[in-house]
C-alpha cells in the first residue's frame, strides 16, 4: 500500500561532540557562543537541581519527584527558543524550561512538596505543570486558537512524553492544529520509556514524529541530546507558527537516565547495560566537550559555574524549607472566584476540625508513591 518517505532526522553534534552536519544554517547555532554557553549553564543548573530534589525526596523532605536527568537538552532548547511572550503549556518533566522562563527553584520544590503555591509563579500566561497525561496538548491548541482569534503574533509550545503520544488528547490536538493551522509547536520528549513501557510497545510506527502525517502538519525527528539541533528545529517551528503557517511536531529522541520518579525502581524493567550505553549519549557532556574543544569553556569556568549552581539551588531549597504552610482555609480560597455563601457551612466545619486538630499530635509519615 502506501509507504512513508524516510522521516527527516536532525543532528548537528554526534555523541562524540563531532559536527556531523553539512547544513550551512546549522552554523548559526553551532557558532553562537553566547547561546551555547547559556544552554550549557542551564543544563548544568538543571542537573544539579534535579539531583538535589531527588535527595530531598529520599530524605523525606519532599514528595514523589520526576527527575529530568539526561533530557536537559530538550528542556533547555525549548526554554531558550521561546520568547517571554510565547506561552508554554508544559507537562511534569519540564524543570529546565520552567527555570529558564523565570520559575523559581523554591516554587518547583513547593509543587513537588505538596503545596499549591508551586504553580503560582512564572510568566502569567504559562500553563501550570500538568500531571494527567496528554491533557496539556488540548489546552495548548486552545491557547493557540485564542492567540489566533485575538490576533496575537506569539506561539505556543507544548511538551509531552513518548507514552503520552498514545493518548487521544494528543492526537485530537494534532488534528485540530493541522485543520486550523494553529500557531503551536508540539515537542515530544521521547525518553524511550513511559514508566516501565518501552517506546516499542507504545507505538508500531518507526518514528513518533510521523504522527504529524495524519494531521497534515510538518514533522521532524531530532537528536534530543544535541542541544544545537533541538534548538534549531524549535526556532524554525516557532517561526512557522508566528508567521501564520501553522503547527509543527518535533520528536526529540533522548533517554530517561533516571527512574521514572522517586517512587519508581527502573532496575525492575530495564537492563543496566541499556542505561550505560545511554550515558555515553548524554547531552551535557556532549555540549561541554564541544565548547571545551573550541576553548569556549574552561575548567575554571566550570568550577565557578558549579559553585554558582550550588548556591542557587541551596538558596531555593532554603526558601522552600522555610516557607510557612498555607492555612487550612486556603483550600477554599481559589475554588470559586468568590467563596459561595451557600457553602458557609463547610467553613464552619473546617474551623471546628482545625480546632480539634490543634489539640492533637502531628500526622504520620508519608508513603512514597507516584
Amino acid at each position: 500500500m502506501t509507504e512513508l518517505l524516510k522521516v527527516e532526522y536532525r543532528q548537528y553534534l554526534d555523541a562524540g561532540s563531532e559536527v556531523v552536519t553539512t547544513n550551512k544554517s546549522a552554523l548559526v547555532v553551532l557558532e553562537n557562543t553566547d547561546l551555547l554557553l547559556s544552554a550549557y549553564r542551564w543544563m548544568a543548573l538543571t542537573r544539579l537541581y534535579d539531583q538535589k530534589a531527588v535527595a530531598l525526596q529520599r530524605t523525606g523532605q519532599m514528595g514523589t519527584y520526576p527527575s529530568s536527568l539526561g533530557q536537559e537538552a530538550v528542556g533547555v532548547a525549548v526554554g531558550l527558543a521561546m520568547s517571554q511572550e510565547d506561552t508554554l503549556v508544559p507537562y511534569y518533566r519540564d524543570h529546565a524550561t520552567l527555570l529558564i522562563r523565570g520559575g523559581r527553584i523554591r516554587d518547583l520544590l513547593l509543587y513537588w512538596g505538596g503545596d499549591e503555591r508551586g504553580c503560582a509563579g512564572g510568566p502569567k500566561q504559562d500553563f501550570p505543570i500538568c500531571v494527567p497525561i496528554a491533557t496539556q496538548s488540548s489546552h495548548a491548541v486552545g491557547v493557540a486558537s485564542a492567540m489566533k482569534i485575538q490576533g496575537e503574533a506569539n506561539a505556543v509550545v507544548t511538551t509531552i512524553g513518548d507514552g503520552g503520544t498514545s493518548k487521544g488528547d494528543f492526537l485530537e490536538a494534532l488534528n485540530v492544529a493541522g485543520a486550523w493551522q494553529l500557531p503551536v509547536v508540539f515537542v515530544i520528549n521521547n525518553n524511550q520509556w513511559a514508566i516501565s513501557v518501552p517506546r516499542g510497545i507504545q507505538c508500531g510506527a518507526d518514528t513518533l514524529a510521523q504522527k504529524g502525517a495524519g494531521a497534515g502538519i510538518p514533522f521532524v525527528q531530532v537528536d534530543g541530546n544535541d542541544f544545537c539541533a533541538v534548538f534549531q528545529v524549535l526556532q524554525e517551528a516557532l517561526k512557522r507558527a508566528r508567521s501564520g503557517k501553522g503547527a509543527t511536531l518535533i520528536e526529540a529522541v533522548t533517554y530517561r537516565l533516571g527512574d521514572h520518579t522517586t517512587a519508581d525502581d527502573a532496575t525492575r524493567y530495564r537492563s543496566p547495560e541499556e542505561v550505560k550505553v545511554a550515558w555515553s549519549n548524554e547531552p551535557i557532556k556532549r555540549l561541554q566537550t564541544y565548547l571545551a574543544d573550541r576553548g569556549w569553556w574552561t575548567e575554571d569556568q566550570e568550577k565557578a559555574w558549579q559553585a554558582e549552581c550550588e548556591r542557587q539551588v541551596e538558596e531555593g531549597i532554603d526558601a522552600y524549607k522555610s516557607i510557612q504552610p498555607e492555612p487550612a482555609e486556603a483550600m477554599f480560597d481559589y475554588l470559586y472566584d468568590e467563596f459561595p455563601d451557600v457553602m458557609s457551612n463547610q467553613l464552619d466545619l473546617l474551623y471546628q476540625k482545625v480546632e480539634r486538630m490543634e489539640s492533637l499530635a502531628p500526622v504520620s509519615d508519608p508513603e512514597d508513591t507516584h
Partner: protein
Amino acid sequence: MDDLSHEITLVEAVNLALSHEMSSNESVVVLGEDVGTNGGVFRATVDLRERFGFKRVMDTPLAETLIAGMAVGMAGHGLKPVAEIQFMGFIYAAMEHLVSHASRMRNRTRGRLSCPLVIRAPFGGGIHAPEHHSESTEALFAHIPGLRVVIPSSPARAYGLLLASIRSPDPVLFLEPKRIYRIDRQTVVDNGQALPLDTCFTLRQGEDITLVSWGASIRESLLAAESLAKEGVEAEVIDLASIKPFDLSTILNSVRKTGRCCIVHEACRSFGVGAEISASLAEHALLDLKAPIRRVTGFDTVMPYFKNEHYYLPSEEDIVATCQALMKF
C-alpha cells in the same frame, strides 16, 4: 427602535443570551460540533456565525475531549468560550478536562490563571430520540468541586441564567432541558439582566408540601401542584436552578414551613441530585418533618429507548400520588 421583548421559546432564549453576550463582550466565543453554518442541531446557535464571524463561532472537529480541552486553553488565555456538547450523552469524553482542569485551574495556580468557560449541553429525555440522546447525569457534575452546574426551566430563566453563567468567573456546566426547548413561549426582555447563580426560584407558594425540582420536570411539578390544589393541598414549587453549589436555605425554609418535601427529577434515583437535597434536609430539618422526604425520579436503569421511555419518566400523576401519600403519612 428595536423591540426588545419577544415571546420566545427556551432554545430561542439561549440563542438570545448568546447573541447578547457576544455583542457586548468581544472575548465570548462559541465552539462545538455543527454550531456554525448549521446553527446547532437544535438551532441554539443559529445566526451567530453570520453575525460574529468564523473566528468567534467555530465548528470543531468531532471530538468532545478536544472541545472541552480547547475551551480550557481558551479560557486560560483570555477568552470566554461557550462550548456546546451536542447531547449530554456525549459529554463523558469531556469529563477529564472538566474534573481535572476546568474546575481546578484557579486553585492549581493560586489564582494566576482561571478557567471561566461555559459548557452547554441539551439534556434529558422525552423527545423520542435515539439511544444516548436522553441522558440526565447532572449528578456526576454536581459532585465536582469548583464546577458550577446550572439548569434553567423556562425561557426567561434560560436567558438570565445563561447570561450569568457566561459572566461567571467560574467554569459552568449549563444543561438545557431539551424536552421543553420549544414547549412554551414566554416574553423575554433582552435587557442583559442576569439572574443570580446562588439562589433557587420559588415558582409557586404553598403551605402544605414543598416540591423541589429543576429542568423539564418543573413542568410536571407545576401541573401536579395545580392538581393537588384542586384537592386542597397547596404545594410550594421550588426550581433548584443552580444545582452546584446549591441554595439549601430557601428549601430549608420552605420545608420548615410545610413539614413535607417531595423531590422530583428525571435522572436515576440512586446517587442522584435528589439524594443530596434529601440528605441535607435530613441533617438540618429533621424535627420539622411531618413525613419522610420522598423522591419521584427515573429508575436506576438505562433510560429505555423511546417506545418505552414513558415508563421511565416521572409524570404529573407520579408526583401527585407521592404527595398524596405524604399528606396522609
